[in-house]
């Protein structure tokens, strides 16, 4: 299942990347896509009620604890992260690899591919960025592997593309792609522990009650204060 909103200049680009990735894997699995206005919480959750997919893909604006939908409301956040239990999750969005990713495994997600900072790109190399961003899901699905098993190949492939861009004189594109590859992370059971929370209180709660204790606190905060609307990608 793939969800990709389209409501600004950036999502107009990333929805294309998502479509290209889904086309590449469509011979290997059935793809159920929610593009543009379809990419909203109610429709995605309804589909998850009907059928539990192996893969969940989200391309676009994210923040630490949210995958944003086309209506600028969360599709997935801390309160419904457990709906992705049992799935391989692949995100091209800002920051969700840091927040949602850290809680994903304790919520039953098999593995969570995401970026632990803001994703960046330049418009002089959109094809190359698309290739790098899509590489992991295409490799994993077409070769029947887990994301954790293709992440280093993906990173190296991204670095190779960056080297080519640099040779072509596209310095900013190269630098941006290197940065993106550096902030790519896969969370999975038995994998490296997510980084300790920066906030001292969060760290204490995590150490006392584990990631699920911290998830409860963060979810309550999200319920009380709402999710941060200022999105990144």
């Amino acid at each position, binding site marked *: 299942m793939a969800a990709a909103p389209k409501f600004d200049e950036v999502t107009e680009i990333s929805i294309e990347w998502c479509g290209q990735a889904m086309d590449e894997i469509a011979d290997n699995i059935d793809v159920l896509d929610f593009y543009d206005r379809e990419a909203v919480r109610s429709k995605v959750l309804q589909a998850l009620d009907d059928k539990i997919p192996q893969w969940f893909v989200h391309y676009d604006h994210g923040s630490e604890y949210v995958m944003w939908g086309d209506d600028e409301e969360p599709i997935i956040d801390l309160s419904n992260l457990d709906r992705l239990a049992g799935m391989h999750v692949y995100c091209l969005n800002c920051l969700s690899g840091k927040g949602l990713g850290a809680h994903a495994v304790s919520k039953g997600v098999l593995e969570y591919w995401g970026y632990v900072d803001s994703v960046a*790109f330049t418009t002089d190399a959109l094809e190359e960025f698309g290739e790098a961003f899509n590489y992991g899901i295409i490799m994993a699905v077409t070769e029947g592997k887990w994301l954790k098993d293709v992440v280093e190949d993906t990173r190296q492939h991204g670095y190779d593309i960056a080297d080519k861009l640099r040779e072509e004189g596209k310095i900013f594109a190269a630098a941006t792609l290197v940065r993106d590859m550096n902030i790519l992370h896969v969370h999975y059971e038995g994998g490296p522990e997510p980084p300790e929370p920066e906030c001292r209180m969060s760290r204490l709660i995590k150490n006392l009650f584990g990631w699920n204790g911290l998830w409860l606190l963060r979810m309550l905060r999200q319920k009380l204060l709402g999710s941060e609307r200022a*999105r990144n990608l």
Partner: protein
Amino acid sequence: MVTLDDELDEEVLEVLRQQPEKNSDGTPWKLKLGRQYLTKGDILDKWDNDKDLRRDVRKLLLGLKLHLLGRR
């Protein structure tokens, strides 16, 4: 006195000045960085007063330099 930061900024600015304003298809070159989606002109306009942007762009290019050292 010229600091290391000043020198680095000058180097980054030089790379930025060399960046074509338009892509090969004639569309404006843009950099998506954090919450911003900036043309070359936007970056140059903001350069003197936007400390965060300066830091982020500087980090980008430093990251490439470190990457190249690691690839050798």
